[in-house]
């Protein structure tokens, strides 16, 4: 039955197909077949086809089983039946094939549909992505816009109140701007712009006027430059006139030019010194510059170019030196022959460190009788101190050995100010600088060579080393010469040195007299007949002075040192001989001379063993007997000495010395004091107290 069914179907199919074909023009058979198959596959249900397929398969299997059974029988009948059955089976196979094809078509159609759907989804997704990205970008743009800073915020605007006060109404428009902040800002910006424009205009005007002025200056300058040769000509023309009138204008000019090359300390000294020279007149003080000007100019240029370098590389230099030294030391161990060159090197180093500035300042101080002291101030470039040498000039030759010493020896400049003997550098860094330069000697050893570094000389040049010591020593700073210090010191010094010179000339005269045995009479004093005489006056050395037992006391008290000028006076009267060792301080007559006495009469007596000698020393060395504390001159003291020795001898009771002076009491008190004090009564009355 099934078979029939299928054949029926087939037929119908065939009919259908044939009818369709017949109906439609045979355009493209294959295409039509495909279309047909597709529509057929669509219209049929897949489940039903599956059941049909299973049934056909069952039928085929049944047919094959029947054939096999029939074959086994082997009859003709059966052969026919087999044929029939074979046909039937073949038809079934065809139907199976058709079903398979239909299924295939259907599968393909499903797959195509799926792909189509997938593509649609993909494109939709892509669209979505694009939209999201766009949205994001727009968001960013929005924030950017929100964060935008306008240029106008950076502009400093006039404060609000000022704006309303100053701006014209058409800009400020208060009725709008008071309420609208944006408008206010715009208005203010506008006001600002207008103001700035105005200012820029003013600025341009000023610039142009400045250019005009500078052009005028340049013109004037060029005119002045053109003037210079003319002036030079004029100067040349006036030269004969100057010579004729004995004016020192040219020299002054030369000196001023040289002064500009002086190192700052010496320049200060020169400036202040010449100021005083102008005030006091050339007869008292003259100031000059001497030395190699070209050398100075070269040094000046050198200094300005390397000044900064030195400051920086100073330390490293000294280190380098040390290393060099070390190496030299090492070498020396192996090569003893290098010794000589080393000495030369040391000499060169010494020269280098003690280098003087090529220019020096000369100050000459003159006093009335014509004696002049020429002070030469040198500046040690590397040690940065000022040293002094001096030359004396006299109007007439000095007679007397000890007298000449008074004016010529170093002592004339000693103790001008207390404690200032110029024996060591006042600069605290000198030792360091010497060491750094590899010079092991102390500065004192170079003093005879370079000159004495008196503190007053430093101060005259405005250098005050005390100030540095007081400051933090670690904090090195270059010393700047002080103008005010120099002014004060130069004035003070000129008067001090004049006084000293006058005192020395006075002393020299006194000494000349003393050497010839004369003692100047003292003014407003009653003359006393003196029997003792000065028989000798000469200078002595420290060894002789210090060995005398009479001076032990003064030396022990530190009142006399080797710095003092020392003399020996011998006073005699008949058999008595008095030796007086006199120590004169550099500061004479401010400090009185100190006498140490030794009396040779009935044995040797000095103040250490004899009260009478001690009493005389007290009288001469202290101002016990006078009420005025004024300075005592050497002559006055010598007179006192002679008087006292007369008194001592005359009160001794010896027949050799008859008393011829009026004494109230020859001795008085338990200490049996002799009347050394003189009362100004009549011819002079001698008393003890």
């Amino acid at each position, binding site marked *: 039955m099934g078979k029939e069914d299928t054949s029926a179907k087939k037929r119908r199919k065939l009919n259908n197909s044939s009818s369709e074909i017949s109906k439609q023009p045979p355009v493209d058979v294959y295409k039509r077949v495909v279309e047909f198959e597709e529509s057929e596959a669509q219209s049929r249900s897949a489940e039903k086809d599956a059941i049909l397929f299973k049934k056909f398969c069952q039928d085929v299997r049944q047919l094959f089983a029947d054939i096999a059974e029939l074959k086994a029988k082997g009859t003709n009948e059966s052969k026919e039946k087999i044929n029939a059955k074979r046909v039937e089976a073949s038809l079934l196979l065809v139907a199976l094939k058709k079903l398979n094809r239909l299924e295939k078509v259907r599968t393909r159609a499903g797959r195509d549909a799926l792909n189509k759907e997938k593509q649609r989804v993909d494109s939709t997704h892509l669209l979505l992505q694009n939209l999201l990205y766009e949205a994001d970008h727009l968001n960013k743009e929005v924030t950017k816009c929100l964060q935008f800073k306008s240029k106008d915020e950076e502009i400093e605007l006039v404060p609000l109140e000022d704006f309303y006060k100053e701006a014209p109404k058409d800009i400020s428009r208060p009725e709008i701007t008071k309420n609208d902040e944006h408008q206010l800002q715009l208005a203010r910006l506008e006001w600002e712009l207008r103001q700035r424009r105005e200012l820029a205009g003013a600025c341009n005007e000023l610039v142009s006027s400045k250019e005009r002025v500078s052009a005028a200056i340049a013109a004037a300058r060029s005119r002045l430059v053109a003037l210079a040769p003319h002036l030079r000509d004029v100067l040349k023309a006036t030269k004969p006139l100057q010579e004729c009138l004995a004016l020192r204008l040219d020299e002054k000019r030369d000196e001023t030019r040289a002064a500009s090359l002086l190192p700052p300390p010496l320049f200060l000294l020169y400036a202040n010194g010449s100021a005083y020279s102008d005030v006091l007149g050339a007869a008292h003080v003259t100031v000059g510059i001497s030395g190699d000007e070209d050398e100075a100019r070269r040094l000046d240029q050198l200094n300005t170019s390397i000044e900064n370098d030195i400051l920086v590389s100073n330390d490293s230099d000294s280190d380098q030196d040390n290393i060099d030294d070390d190496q030299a030391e090492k070498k020396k161990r192996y090569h003893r022959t290098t010794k000589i060159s080393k000495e030369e090197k040391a000499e060169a180093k010494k020269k280098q460190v003690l280098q003087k500035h090529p220019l020096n300042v000369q100050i000459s101080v003159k006093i009335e009788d014509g004696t002049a002291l020429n002070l030469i101030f040198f500046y040690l470039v590397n040690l940065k101190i000022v040293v002094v040498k001096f030359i004396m000039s006299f109007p007439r030759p000095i007679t007397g050995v000890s007298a000449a010493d008074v004016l010529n020896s170093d002592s004339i400049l000693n103790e001008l100010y207390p404690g200032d003997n110029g024996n060591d550098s006042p600069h605290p860094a000198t030792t360091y600088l010497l060491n750094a330069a590899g010079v092991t000697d102390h500065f004192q050893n170079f003093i005879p060579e370079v000159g004495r570094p008196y503190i007053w000389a430093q101060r005259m040049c405005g250098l005050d080393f005390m100030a540095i010591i007081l400051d933090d020593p670690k904090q090195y700073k270059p010393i700047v010469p002080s103008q005010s210090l120099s002014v004060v010191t130069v004035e003070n010094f000129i008067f001090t040195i004049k006084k000293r010179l006058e005192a020395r000339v006075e002393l020299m005269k006194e000494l000349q007299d003393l050497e010839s045995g004369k003692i100047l009479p003292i003014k407003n004093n009653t003359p006393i007949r003196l029997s003792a005489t000065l028989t000798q006056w000469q200078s002595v050395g420290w060894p002789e002075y210090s060995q005398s037992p009479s001076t032990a006391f003064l030396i022990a*008290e530190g*009142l006399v040192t080797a710095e003092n000028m020392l003399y020996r006076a011998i006073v005699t009267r008949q058999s008595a001989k008095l030796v007086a060792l006199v120590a004169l301080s550099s500061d004479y007559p401010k*400090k*009185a001379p*100190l006498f140490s006495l030794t009396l040779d009469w*009935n044995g040797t007596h000095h*103040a*250490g*063993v*004899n*009260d009478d000698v*001690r*009493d005389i*020393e*007290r009288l001469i*060395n*202290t*101002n*016990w007997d006078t009420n005025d*504390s004024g300075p*005592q001159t050497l002559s006055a003291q010598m007179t006192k000495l002679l008087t006292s020795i007369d008194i001592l001898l005359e009160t001794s*009771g010896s027949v050799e010395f008859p008393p011829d002076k009026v004494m*109230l*009491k020859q*001795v*008085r*008190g*338990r*200490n*049996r*004091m002799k009347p050394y004090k003189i009362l100004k009564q009549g011819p002079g009355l001698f008393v003890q*107290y």
Partner: protein
Amino acid sequence: MLDKMLYNTVLCQTYSPCGKYLIAGNIYGHIAVFDLDAILHPVIELLTPDYNKPKHLHLLENKTQICSLATTDNFLIVGTVNEISGWDWKAVVQSKLSKPAWTIKISNQLKIDETDVNSLWFNKEENKIYAGCGDNKVYVYNLEDGRRLNTFDGHKDFIHSIHGRGKQLISAGEDGLVMLWDTRMGKSHNKLEPHKKANISRPEIGKWIGSVALDEDWIVCGGGPRLALWHQRSLDAVMVFDIPDRGIHVSFFHEDCIVAGGAAKHLYQLSYSGEVKVELPVSATTVYSAELRTSPNKLLAIAGSSPEIDICTSFKYRDQVLHFR
């Protein structure tokens, strides 16, 4: 000009009754008060460089030389020129010296002639002060009312030194005389003239007697003439001391010894037999004052023509040096 204190000369010294202070007077009219406690028992921590300088330095109003000093229980008695003054001890040890508690003027005929009070001796039992003066006289004053009780007149030149014992007083002067006085009678009953004895006199120094002292039986004196020990009753020079001096200014008895000094390098302690027991080196060129005490502690202060005063606690050697300047 030097400070005159470098040439200081101390003429006299004394101790305060409490024993704490040494007082010294010089020719410039200064009275120096040394605090002995601080000097002898210094506290090392509190030691200052000027510990051996005077605690106080008083300058007398008239600035005359201070010739002599004496101590009573209540007063420091100062003999200067033309007057003797007494200061309360309390006033002396203050930093500023007030006016003296009392003053005795010594009358003198000539205005210009000044009278030094060279030596003072205080008699405790009688409460009298004896003053050997520059006008050749010894005056006796009652310390109760300051009245002059007596005048011993006999010397022909100024008196260097006086000393007393009981009813006896002895004086020595520039005239070379040593006179013994009876204090009750006010008369001299004996006198010595050492310069007239050949083995004692030293004419090159002078005939003056610088110092004299009394013991029960003995007199010691010296000056220009040599230091000698005399027997009081027989007035014989029993012992002439051979010491290298150029004049004696200090001599006194102390425990079977004689202490003597003057223009010499040493202060000597001598036995009656002439033996030199101790030679004390001194700072002064000439010793004008040596003050010895045994209570509250042993102390000897030696001063003279020097700004230094030597202090000995053992009497054997110099312990310390004080500076009177």
